[in-house]
Each structure stands twice: as C-alpha cells, then as structure tokens.
C-alpha cells in the first residue's frame, strides 16, 4: 500500500514566560491510501497541533512530513487542492449563508460552484443552505465544516472531531459517509474521542500521548497487542468466594482478584483449566468469560488517563511513550 501521509520525528515547542512546553516530541504517523485512520489522544496530547502543523498553519521545530508523496510544508501549495480538512471546532462567518460560505471558498479555490450543491446535499444541509450560519446548531455547523472539506473532492480528508455536536442519527450518517468516501478511494484521517465510533469505522489507528506516538497499526493489531488474558469467573450462589479464590491460588492460578460477586483470574493459559481446578473442590462454575478488550480500555491504558477513584486528573497528566516505541520515516 502507498502511504498518503507520513510524519517522522515531528517536534513543536512552545516557549513562554512559564517555561518550555513540548507539544510534539518526535511524533511519528503513517496513513495508508484508502484507509479510514483514527487519530486518538487525550486533550492536550498534540493531536490538533499535529494536524495544524501538517496543514501549514503551525511551523514545526523539527521532523519531516509528507502528504501524497510531497514533502510539506515546502510543497504544500502543490497538494493543498487534494487535501480537505477541518481543524477543531467549525468556524464560519456568522452572517453568511451556508451557500455563500461554500461558494466563496469554491471561488477562492477555483472549484466549480456546482460542487457546492452536491456537498450540501451530501451532508444534509440542502434545505437550510439559504439560512445564515449564525442560526445553525453546533451539529449543523459541523456538517457545514465537513461540506467545506469535501468541496475539493479531496484525495485526503482530515477531520478533527467531525461527530462533535451531532445527534445519534447524524453520527450514524457521518459513519456511513466516512465509509462510503473510503470505498470511493478517499483516505480519511479522523480525530475523535468517541472511541466506539473509531473502533467501528476505522481500519487503522495512531494513538498519541504527551506529543509522542504510543500505539499504531490496524485496529485489530492494536487490540491484539493489548489483549487481556483475564477471565471472569462466577460460581453457584451461596459458595464462599474467598475459599474459591484460595483454592484457585493453591491449584496454581497466578493472579486471582476478588470482586463483588465474581473472581477475575489472570495468567491462565486455558480457561478450561479453571473449571477443572474448581471441580476438584466440588465447586461448579456458572460463568466463565474471557474479558474482551476494546479500544477505549486500550486508549485509557496507553495514555494513562483512566479515572482513579478519589483523584482529579489534570489535562497534562498523561503517559508518554518510551523512546523505543518511536518509529522512523515510513515505518
């Protein structure tokens, strides 16, 4: 597969009177053609800085970036016509209508104005196209932003939180739209905090934390790498769970944790062994379920942002990747 987007060792430092803050600290990312790629990270991890840098809005302090095979920002004007993007919340001049907003962009970019009608139809704003943007809800502004990004019929579509403010129907429509665009050959980079959505529609993901990549690859691979070997065990009612836990430990289970009304057993190769071990003590298992890992739990684990009871996590309290996890150009 061809890489549509490649980032290697990207660095961005902000200096202020309070000191130096590394927004991006040698960040790497690769997106293959035709994929829907999820770009995930906690607040303040460097997602938007990455996208802004890629799109020429911010000057990096180091690293290399290439879009559609051309190094950027040096060759950005050559490929800008093939990149559609929305960065952060959609912002438009409030007194213009959606139609005016898009037709002005079309004029500025040399795009045929017929395309305006097409994209308004595509994002479901056809009937409200003549209304001023200030009368739009957040979800409608989001749709307009997506429409503006699609106006160029781009080869690479970069969307920062496109589902923000959308109603459930809108989120589903957006999901279908992303899939359809990818099937038509468009590469989509999607930044979102709705991890369930990302897991549903993305082929691959990159997770960023504290300005560094902490995981990357296909969704299946990332989940497999962090697959848990834990098994949830329930036994018949009335049986002393403490005694059952002790019996499993004695039989050789590496880790047994006692929960409210079940046991969590980890480090066992074959879950069937648990049934056998408990049967030796005349204890009969009523549920034996391997714990499924999802993108949300992987994200929370990798970024160190899982809530801890009694603690108020601050936005900068995230896990940074060890240097060994960083990859080079084209990796």
């Amino acid at each position, binding site marked *: 597969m061809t890489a549509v987007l490649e980032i290697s060792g990207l660095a961005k430092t902000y200096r202020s009177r309070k000191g130096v803050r590394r927004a991006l600290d040698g960040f790497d990312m690769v997106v293959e053609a035709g994929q829907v790629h999820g770009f995930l990270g906690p607040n303040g991890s460097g997602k938007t800085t990455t996208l802004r840098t890629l799109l020429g*809005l911010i000057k990096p302090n180091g690293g290399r970036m290439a879009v559609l095979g051309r190094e950027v920002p040096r060759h950005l004007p050559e490929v*800008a016509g093939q990149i559609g993007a929305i960065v952060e919340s959609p912002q*438009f001049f409030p007194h213009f209508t959606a139609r005016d907003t898009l037709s002005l962009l079309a004029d500025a970019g040399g795009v045929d104005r017929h395309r305006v009608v097409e994209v308004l139809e595509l994002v479901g704003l056809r009937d409200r196209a003549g209304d001023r943007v200030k009368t739009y809800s957040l979800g409608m502004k989001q749709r307009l932003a997506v429409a503006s990004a699609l106006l160029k019929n781009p080869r690479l579509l970069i969307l920062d939180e496109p589902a923000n403010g959308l109603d459930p129907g809108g989120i589903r429509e957006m999901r279908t739209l992303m899939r359809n665009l990818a099937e038509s050959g468009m590469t989509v980079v999607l930044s979102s905090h709705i991890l369930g959505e990302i897991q549903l529609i993305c082929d691959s993901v990159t997770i960023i934390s504290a300005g560094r990549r902490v995981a990357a690859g296909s969704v299946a691979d990332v989940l497999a790498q962090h697959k848990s070997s834990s098994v949830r065990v329930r036994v018949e009612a009335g049986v002393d769970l403490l005694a059952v836990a002790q019996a499993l430990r004695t039989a050789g289970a590496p880790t047994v944790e006692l929960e409210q009304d079940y046991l969590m057993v980890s480090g066992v190769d074959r879950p069937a062994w648990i049934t056998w071990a408990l049967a030796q003590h005349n204890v009969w298992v009523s549920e034996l379920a391997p714990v499924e890992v999802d993108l949300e739990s992987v994200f929370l684990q990798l970024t160190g942002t899982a809530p801890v009871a009694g603690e108020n996590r601050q936005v900068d309290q995230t896990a940074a990747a060890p240097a060994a996890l960083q990859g080079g150009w084209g990796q």
Partner: protein
Amino acid sequence: MSLYKAETRRLVKRRFTRWLVIGSLFALAAVAVGTAVTNSKVGPEQIAAAQAEAERYYQESVRYAEQDRLRCEAAKGTPEAGQYPADCGQMYTPSREDYGYQGYMTPTFDFREEFGNMVVTLAAILALAAFVIGASYVGAEWSTGGMMNLLLWRPKRLQVLTTKLLALLVSLAVLTVLTAVAWTGAFALIANLRGSLDSMTSGAWQSFALMELRALGLVLAAGAIGFGIASLGRHTALALGAVVGLLVVFQFGLVTVLSMAEVKFAEAWLLPIWVMAWMSKTVTIEDFNSCNYSADGCRPDQLTLTWPMAGGAMVVAVVLVVGTALWTMRSRDIT
C-alpha cells in the same frame, strides 16, 4: 484571479461593509442637502433686499443713538450724569459704512471659495469609513476563523493577505472615485442653483481634481492602516482600540502636556493638522510665545507643513503598519 474575485465578493457581501458605506453616503448627502438649503442665489433682488435690511438697521441705530444723546443732555446736573460723557456731542453716532449690505446677504455657495472644504469633508468621512471597513474586513476573518479556513485552501500566506488587501484597496478606490464624481457634480449643481460657478477656471477645476486625488490617497492609506493593524492584532477591535488610544494619547494627552511645557509647535502632533496639510497643500502653525520684531510689529515663529511632508509621513505609516502585518503573517502560528 479567482482569489481576488472571491475576496472582492466577500468584502462587498459583508453586511457591515454595506451598512457603513450607506451610513457614510447618508452623512455626505446630509451635508450636501444642508448646504443647498442654507444657501441661495444672489441677484439684483437679493442685493436690493440686503440693502433695504442694512438701511433699516442703520436708521434704527441712528434713532437709538439720538435717544441716548437726549438722555445724556437730560442727565446733566443730576446724579445720572456720571453715566454719560461730559460732552454729549462726543457720543457714538452710527455711520452708513458700518452697515454695508454684504453683511445682510443670505449665504451663497461660491464653488471656488467653498468646494475645497467640501472635498476635505468628503475625504474625512470616507477615510474614517475606509479605516473601519479595512479593520473589520480582516479582523472578522481572523476572529471567526475564516482566515484559517482560507489558508487550508490557499496555503500561501502572503498571497492571501496581499490579495485581501488589494481587493480592499481597489474596492475603496472605486467607491471613492464614484463618490467624488457624484460629490463634485452635486456641489456644481448646488452652486449653479444656490450660488455661483462663475469664478471657476480650468486651473481651479484642475486644482480641485488634484485635491480629490489626494483625498483618494488619504482614503486608501486609512483603509490600509486599518487593515494592517487589525491583521496584526487578529481582531477588528484592536484597530479601533489603537485609534481610540491614538486620539486619547496624542490628540489630548500629549498635546496638553506639550502645551503646558510650552513646547514649540505642539499642534504639529495633532493628526488633523497633517490631514489638513495633505488636503490643503499647506498648513502654517504659529508659536505665539515667540516674537520676531519687524516693521509690522511682533511676528511669531512659524512652521509650515506641506503636502509632500504629510504625504511622506502617510507613506511611512502605511509601509510600517502593512509591512509589519505581512512580516508577522509570514511566520506566525495560526491557532
């Protein structure tokens, strides 16, 4: 070219631009109507009426003077005598020369004498509008995120900003030229109906044309400076705030302090003086604290500001503000 057309469309489509232009034209129309209403044509009838009015006031004045003289005579030998001169014949007696008919004429619009002030009015109103339009045009783009959107389409920052500036200046030039033509036509008509065009020569017309050309320069400079300041601060309010700051600090504060310190030619720090020098070709400031003895008496020191000096200052201001805005645009992070 497509970007230029889009930017011109964007500027003209803005509600704020439209309302401000309409408001400025309305203010100019009010000045023209006011001038037309308060002036009238001078003919034999008007002169005769003014002469009659002058004569009436003269006769009335003579009557009052005679009454005063009689009171003076009557007061002799009484305590009121102190209020009058000893010789009542020395009391003021009006003369006909004091009551010339010219002072009783209704105003008439002499185009050659008065159109210069009208061009200054035109320039001042349009320059103010140009400054606010320029500031709002780019300031709103920055504050609403429109500039960022545009840069995603056209990632050539300097080209985007200079095209916006060009669209603004060309639009302002068109507006100024059309308004100046209408303004000249309107006042020529007013002079024709309510005054006189008789003293106009081809040289006088040429002089007014050059004055209007300088008005165009002032309008464009004001627009460019408003645009530049708002682009630097990425907000319309910054440009407007800068103007208010300039007025407070320079027009009131600094001049007051300099005057109190008896600094020579303190008025030279007033912006309107430079505008007047640009528009009227010269402005002379006098320092009344100084005295140069001559045959005519005491003459104060003088400082003459000329239009090339004012033009030079204007060019420096425009280059400084717009240049800084472009230089900043080239390297700033757009967040």
